[in-house]
């Protein structure tokens, strides 16, 4: 290419537009949630109490912390501190893994209690509770899927920082992966109260 074009603001804007699509993607599940909640307010409270609030709260704090380290990584690279950047992005990945491990134990416990989509135990609890758990599994599952994608992306970015492909002069890829990661956090900010804290 004879003519190198660079537009970091445009790249960030493109990422934001992609995040708008992610918001709408999750909104489909929140739409189903809101309709079901208006239909089964009592059953949702009952079902919500079956979720482990400690797992939810700890995971919230873990994700918030991972967002913090990711935001700090940008500051670090802007200040030219490559080693610090790598430590910060790596800790984001670490926190993402902690989140997923928590999720694994949480889901194992629930599945151990016979609560999973299509289970007989769930059918006995009635349609309201069933709907709650189906929505919970798919929302948390889709969110978990995004955690995996985001962590992978940050992993790639960390390697690129190490290799000197992402530099203090040019780091829009790091910014964009951070934007994606914050979206994952944002979704959880809504999932947590709506699923774990319904009375």
């Amino acid at each position, binding site marked *: 290419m004879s003519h190198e074009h660079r537009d970091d603001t445009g790249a960030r804007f493109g990422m934001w537009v992609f995040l*708008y699509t992610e918001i709408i993607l999750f909104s489909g599940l929140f739409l189903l949630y809101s309709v079901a909640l208006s239909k089964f307010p009592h059953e949702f409270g009952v079902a919500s109490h079956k979720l482990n609030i400690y797992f939810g*709260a700890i995971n919230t704090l873990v994700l918030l912390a991972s967002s913090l380290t990711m935001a700090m990584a940008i500051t670090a690279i802007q200040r030219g501190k490559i080693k610090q950047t790598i430590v910060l992005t790596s800790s984001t990945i670490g926190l993402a893994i902690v989140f997923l491990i928590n999720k694994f134990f949480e889901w194992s416990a629930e599945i151990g209690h016979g609560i999973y989509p299509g289970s007989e135990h769930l059918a006995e609890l009635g349609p309201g509770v069933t709907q709650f758990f189906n929505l919970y599994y798919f929302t948390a599952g889709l969110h978990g899927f995004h955690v995996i994608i985001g962590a992978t992306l940050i992993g790639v970015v960390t390697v690129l920082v190490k290799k000197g492909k992402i530099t203090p002069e040019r780091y829009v890829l790091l910014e964009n992966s951070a*934007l994606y990661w914050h979206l994952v956090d*944002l979704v959880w*900010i*809504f999932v947590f109260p709506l699923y774990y*804290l319904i009375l």
Partner: protein
Amino acid sequence: MHETEHQHPPVRYRTLVFTWVALGILTGLTIAASRINMGAANVWVALGIAATKSCLVIGIFMNLRRESRLFKFGLMAALVVLAIFIGMTFIDVLYR
């Protein structure tokens, strides 16, 4: 094009950590609020706190406050569309 506008000045670590602490406090607050029975208001309080937390994440972690108006307009458009999708579905659900 706009060669000088590529990058924003760094956000200070202190600002970021304070934001995180505020987010933690709000998380505690939403748990505490959920233990008080306020009827239907519970959901709205929870959503209000979640919206506040989102504003902090979007404004400071995602640095939207430093971006141009276009970014903010886009987010508004997405949220308005989101509100239309959910709100207008309720025209059906509530009156069925």
